[in-house]
């Protein structure tokens, strides 16, 4: 299998042929040798094992923690932003205008009542 099978039991021209074939591959030009080298390296590269992806577990945990933290931090802000808008809705019960008019109409009565209370205390 080494290519140098120049045997005596076969015609001399066949031995000469194999010798010529050997000669033809001995002196290849540099470009061809370089391309052969690259081809060999490309073939060998695909065999190299890939490192086990042990970094995936801590990376996944870190991502989960970061997301949890983001949710926790964001939630109170979200509440504080929504609460003020909830308050006016609570007082805005349809007849608020009527209530405030009634309040102003009875304002003198409330003032008198207040004075009476202060006088009673005093």
């Amino acid at each position: 299998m080494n290519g140098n099978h120049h045997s005596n039991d076969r015609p001399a021209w066949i031995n000469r042929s194999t010798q010529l074939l050997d000669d033809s591959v001995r002196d290849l030009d540099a470009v061809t040798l370089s391309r052969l080298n690259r081809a060999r390296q490309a073939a060998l590269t695909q065999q190299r094992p890939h490192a086990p992806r042990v970094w995936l577990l801590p990376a996944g945990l870190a991502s989960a923690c970061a997301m949890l933290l983001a949710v926790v931090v964001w939630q109170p802000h979200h509440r504080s932003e929504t609460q003020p808008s909830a308050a006016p809705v609570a007082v805005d019960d349809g007849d608020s205008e009527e209530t405030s008019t009634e309040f102003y109409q009875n304002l003198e009565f409330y003032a008198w009542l207040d004075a009476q209370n202060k006088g009673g205390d005093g």
Partner: protein
Amino acid sequence: MAEIAGTMTGSQLEFARRVDATSTNQRALDQFLRGVERRALRMAELACGSRDDALDVVQDAMCAFVKNYAAKPEPDWAPLFHRVLDSRLNDFHRRRTVRNRWLAVFERKEDDDTLDPIEQAQDLQDPGPLLRLAGSEAGKALDAALKALPLRQRQAFLLRMWEGFDVATTARVMQCSEGSVKTHLSRALAALRRALEDHQ
């Protein structure tokens, strides 16, 4: 080393073992491929007719060999590599035949089944062709004669006579019967001899 091993987890140890085994295997593979690549290129060049195509075929064969057969025992590598290469050359030949079919409609193909068996008999006393030609002339004559051979005949000649595979291994490489190998080789030798004699 033991300390380093002590600090490694199970998966890291397993990975280190795999890297070690793979680098040993890669060195052996690299050495093997270095040993066969030039001859593979020559075979492919004779079949493809161009060095660029031949380099592509050889790279393709190397990749397929490493991918599929790197784990096989080293003594099996040579026949397996040549089997992959032979398969790639057949594919190339088939594609080119289809591509050139329309161009070669009117081209008369030589029928190599019409060889006279008497012509094929080898005269061992006759030094034969090539011996009477000088180096470069002989090389060119051989190159032309080999290129003129049908693919299977050329492969049989190169694998048996140049690579030195026995009939059974050549049959496995070419994925045919031993009888077919003998037939292809016999026809190849007759055609080569005739072509080289005509060249003089």
